[in-house]
């Protein structure tokens, strides 16, 4: 709870409001924990502890249950993440067509390893197993854009497009 008299930053208020709207949207719907977590992560960029506790209270679930679900799925994150999420495909089709070279070069370009975020929060690097675009392997997805037929040489130009 914020101290009396000490105003909350406008951003926090806005996010809190969005969270309440999210709760309202799913109230009474069965199986709403995962969509609520997805929505909350959309709002906050990750899942802060306080938010998880709030979700547990809202859904009348033990916090351990909420935490258990969060840690089970690769999609949920307990730490702040970068503005741009870079996902390198290491699926079979990409593997066979040289994804590991692409992955190595990307690590160099961005300067972090799997699951890590750059200090300036510009990028988070992740590996995935198949983006469903195997015909253009090797493939990298940045946010919602899929980039295919990659060569290590053209990665820099692509990464540079994302601020």
């Amino acid at each position, binding site marked *: 709870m914020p101290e009396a008299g000490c105003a909350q930053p406008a951003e926090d208020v806005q996010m809190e409001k969005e969270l309440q709207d999210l709760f309202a949207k799913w109230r009474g719907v069965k199986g*709403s924990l995962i969509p609520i977590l997805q929505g909350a992560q959309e709002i906050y960029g990750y899942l802060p502890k306080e938010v998880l506790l709030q979700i547990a209270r809202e859904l009348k679930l033990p916090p351990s249950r909420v935490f258990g679900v969060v840690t089970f*799925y690769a*999609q949920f994150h307990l730490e702040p993440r970068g503005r741009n999420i870079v996902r390198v495909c290491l699926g*079979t089709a990409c593997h066979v067509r040289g994804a590991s070279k692409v992955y190595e070069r990307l690590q160099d370009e961005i300067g972090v390893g799997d699951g890590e975020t750059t200090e300036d929060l510009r990028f988070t690097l992740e590996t995935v197993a198949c983006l469903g675009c*195997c015909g253009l392997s090797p493939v990298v997805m940045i946010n919602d854009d899929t980039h295919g037929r990659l060569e290590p040489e053209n990665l820099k130009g692509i990464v540079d497009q994302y601020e």
Partner: protein
Amino acid sequence: MQLVRAHVLVCGGKNCTASGSEQVREAFAKELEKKKLDQEIRLVETDCHGFCEMGPLVIVYPEGTFYVRVTAEDVPVIIEEHLVKGRPVDRLLYKAPVKEDEIPKYKELDFYRKQHRVALRNCGSINPEKIEEYIARGGYASLEKAIYDLTPEQVIEETKTSGLRGRGGGGFPTGLKWEFCRRSPGDLKYLICNADEGDPGAFMDRSILEGDPHSLIEGMAIAAYAIGCSEGYIYCRAEYPLAIKRLKIAIAQAEELGLLGDNILGTDFSFTLHIKEGAGAFVCGEETALMASIEGKRGMPRVRPPFPAQKGLWDKPSNINNVETYANVPMIIGKGADWFGSMGTEKSKGTKVFALTGKVNNTGLVEVPMGVTIRDIIFEIGGGIVGGKEYKGVQIGGPSGGCIPASLMDTPVDYESLIEAGAMMGSGGLVVMDETTCMVDLSRFFLNFTQSESCGKCTPCREGTKRMLEILTRICEGEGVPEDIETLERLGRVIKSTALCGLGNTAPNPVLSTLRYFRDEYEAHIYDKRCPAHACSALLVYTIDEEKCSGCGRCARACPAGAITGEKKEPHKIDPEKCIKCGSCIESCKRGAILRL
């Protein structure tokens, strides 16, 4: 006064000037004057001909010769050859475009000749965001037929007769599955579509979701009618944002037209459809784990029985099928079970979509009648191996499947033949491999995948895959010991027979199948510390061929470890102690003097 014997028209339209027509015109003016032809040949600037991508354009009359992409340098040639000697300059002539009938039809392309598109019938031809296009092509007529003309039992009977089997992996007869669920006691039943498509190397479901979402919706509505479900879920993986977007649009359009929702087409059949986004776990493709995930729990599989048809989502009888399975249903109801059954083999009816990827020339999605051979798919449809390399084998069925070697290329693709060959249909991913793919490394790759996706609930899968992965990693790094092969086989057998769910039951398949067909590669790694495909970097030795090396020093500069030394113009050497086997030197060498052994 002299007679004008020819006109030279130079285009002065905006686009042609941008590509240099001004210079061309000036060059003509100058050159004609120089040659004293400016009296008999008149230079004219014209307006745009609307053919700007070919500009600058020059037309010479009286013949009407049409020159394209002319530059100032070409001008003296045109004057000398054409205007003086009367011989048109061939290379600048506009070539008549191809005629329509000179272009092959789709069916005449190797890629499509053997294909037969049933599940993918509309993909790539209609606009997936417009329901009217789907309906104009006969969409929702099968749903109409089912709910007006057929009883639910008749729909199930028709599906059973057609021989349709699940396209998501196991190949269980679809009609039979529906019947179990229909007969299960209870008023509330759920219909689920498995659109999790976790198998790396497969993307047919995505293509249907993105390219023809209504075929899935119609198929699900027919199934819901047959089984008696009023509510359904499509569980789609979050890595497919476009698919989710198009599905949402499609569902909203179908609701608006009363093809989903209450009292569909004015009957008392009602069916509502929801989308659930997956959250990134391969095991959630397994049906019981998927249902746990829809319920908002950790996506862990549970023991079957009870089967979903008895006790599924929220403990209610539920039916789950794959996207491609449902997409076939409207065609079966529309065209009849006999039509469907006329395609494919005795036990595997209909067509199957395969995702053709890896080292093959024509990657893509191919839908063929079951029973065609692997050879047909890879060499005829796929156009063979990239760069003319040697074909080694194909991995089919993803992490649950196996490798089929080149020697078994004539295996027909149907459920039984693939199992017999030690693989399985799975979702239909075909990853083609050539001589540069190391089979031990590939097994390690799959084990790494299943091991990290194992949910951890049962011991054989959680611990067993870990041990197998350790052994494979050791072999790839050149530390394998002779007992390893036997240990792998024993572990594989135990995990297969004792794991809780399909993930564990099939996890050893890639290892067991490569041990069956490529045992010599394992042995080469273990006994000779050699990787025949030159892929396992720990087992490679880099050397420089002194005969070929010119001492240019490129490799020494490219080497990040400083392992290459040598005098200028003298053969260089690689210090094996320092070499990190990154391969940069090979890429830098222009003379092919560096060898990887």
